[in-house]
């Protein structure tokens, strides 16, 4: 009886503690003051706002918040007050899906911004498609989301309601491979990913491109999100004699990995994607991150004059999180939805369509036609819902800060 209790409790506790990772925390961040004669429309923002990935997730939330505040202040759509409602997906696909259901169930919601993680996006797309509600992610980079499972051979857009202001990993992985091979002159690389949609996809594209360029992938391995001890992996990396570690995943794990790797005597740089481009990576990994690299979507925010007042507002409001990676993209995604609402209202003699489903469907059409200068450059979407603004930057940690070392613009026509 006692022994069976031990086993029973261990099973029960594992299950119970796993469940704690789920659940949602709704933040009502919006400033909502509904005067009688204005219509209040809600924009949902979904991102990890606590725990893993929350640094960049909060950057998405507050980027959207500033866009909504700006639109309300400037009365961008006369007669409409926008309200932002934030949902925390904790980087969990299941939570993201239930958040998507909550957003589509909100009868004042016209669109959604987010999520951060490509794996979460996969579970949300269908929900938004069924509700004919627009969803714009500022950060998803997995090619499958817009171009279908067989994007390498035949591109086919799976959901008309899904857009993104970030470019895809097809480009990001190639850009990283080029910089690793030609810029850093690294010829043999050890590739690690976190088995998530984003991380595994990016690592795969990087490996393929790196091999195409003539480089060698000496070994691959995978980690679990939440892993802390990488002693065994570090020994493998050291033994492989690779001169670069490429990591597909988020900063939570890569910061630990780079520290343990350098402490373990494998002194090679770690190179990752936009998922680890955050100040938290440097804070958590400390001095071991010096010389590490990451590609990120877009060009450095300080080279975007339009982003200046955005950054000032972000800092002045004391918002948490890191706007550097996706803040401007989140602002642009939110603005695209707001501008689409404006176009619908204008086409309807200045009135908000009374049927919310009608409004949602028309907003999707208008978002597809977006064409304006955002903070991150031109905001427009191609036939797959991908941004036409394909810029990338390689950053390297120098004296404890991310510094841009190479920028690129793509023309894939």
């Amino acid at each position, binding site marked *: 009886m006692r022994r069976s209790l031990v086993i029973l409790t261990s099973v029960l506790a594992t299950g119970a503690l796993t469940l704690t990772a789920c659940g949602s925390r709704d933040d009502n961040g919006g400033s909502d003051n509904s005067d009688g004669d204005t219509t209040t429309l809600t924009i949902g923002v979904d991102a990890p706002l606590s725990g893993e990935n929350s640094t960049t997730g909060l950057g998405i939330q507050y980027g959207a918040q500033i866009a909504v505040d700006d639109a309300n202040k400037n009365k961008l759509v006369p007669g409409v007050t926008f309200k932002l409602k934030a949902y925390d997906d904790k980087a969990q696909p299941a939570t993201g899906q239930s958040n998507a259901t909550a957003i589509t169930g909100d009868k004042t919601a016209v669109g959604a911004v987010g999520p951060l993680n490509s794996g979460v996006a996969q579970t949300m797309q269908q929900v938004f498609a069924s509700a004919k509600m627009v969803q714009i992610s500022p950060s998803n980079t997995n090619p499958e989301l817009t171009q279908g499972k067989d994007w390498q051979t035949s591109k086919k857009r799976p959901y008309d309601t899904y857009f993104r202001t970030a470019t895809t990993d097809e480009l990001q992985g190639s850009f990283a491979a080029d910089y690793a091979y030609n810029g850093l002159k690294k010829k043999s690389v050890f590739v690690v990913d976190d088995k998530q949609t984003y991380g595994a996809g990016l690592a795969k594209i990087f490996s393929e491109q790196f091999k195409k360029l003539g480089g060698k*992938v000496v070994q691959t391995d995978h980690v679990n999100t939440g892993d802390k001890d990488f002693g065994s992996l570090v020994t493998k990396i050291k033994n492989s004699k690779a001169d670069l570690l490429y990591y597909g995943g988020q900063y939570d794990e890569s910061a630990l990995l780079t520290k343990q790797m350098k402490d373990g005597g494998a002194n090679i740089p770690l190179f990752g994607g936009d998922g680890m481009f955050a100040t938290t990576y440097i804070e958590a990994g400390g001095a071991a991150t010096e010389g590490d690299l990451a590609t990120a979507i877009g060009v450095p925010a300080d080279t975007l*004059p339009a982003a200046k007042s955005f950054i000032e507002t972000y800092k002045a409001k004391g918002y948490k999180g890191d706007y550097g990676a996706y803040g401007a993209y989140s602002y642009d995604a939110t603005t695209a939805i707001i501008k689409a609402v404006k176009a619908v209202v204008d086409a309807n003699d200045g009135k908000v369509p009374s049927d919310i489903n009608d409004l949602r469907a028309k907003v999707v059409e208008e978002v597809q036609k977006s064409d304006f200068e955002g903070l991150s450059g031109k905001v427009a979407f191609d036939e797959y819902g991908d941004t036409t603004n394909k810029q990338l930057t390689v950053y390297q940690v120098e004296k404890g800060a991310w510094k841009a070392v190479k920028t690129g613009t793509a023309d894939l026509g």
Partner: protein
Amino acid sequence: MTGTGPVEPVNAPDADGSFEVIGADAPRLTDRVAQRWGALPPRARKSAVAAGLALLTAVGALLLAPDDPETREPLDLSAWPADVTRWDYLGLAEHPNSPTTRGSYRFAVSVLRGPDVTLRVTGAAFDGLRAQSTPRPEFTVPGGATRRITVEISVSDCSELPLDAGFHYLDVTLRNTHAIQRHSFIFGGAFSRDLSDLLHEACDPIPPGPGPRPIGSASSQNAD
């Protein structure tokens, strides 16, 4: 012809060839317009410019004003060159020499707004490739304008050159009154295919010339 001096082939024998002064290979229509423009009296020219500017301003104000009531401060002067410069691949110019280790590719370079941008093509990612705009290695595109230019890429060393890289790069130094940036323009699609064709001709299967040495195809190293 890839010398570093400022070559200005006025009335050069190949002046009507496919590569010459930047912008000079523009459609003849513009030439005719330019001639007529030159023939006008200076006062007419001035007033035409003034009228054009006024019209542009008015149209611009009309278009922008309702859209964005709180117009942002004039950002254009502080535009970073990499954010306003666009490259579009137009197509292959002829291979000028044989054996084929060199190809010429035509691009349209646009500067969307802001001050003039001076560009210099410095390379094409790989050490074994040289890239340069011809005939001048450095050229300027005025703000708001598009120029057609030719970039000549030559293969100097086949070892470590991948033949089918998928994406190809042009490394360019961009300079305007605001900043100097080193930037890469990334091409998939047509340019990538055309450049891969050149690499195949130059490096595969028989290496031309004494310099390049034969290697196995890049895919033979792909074991992981």
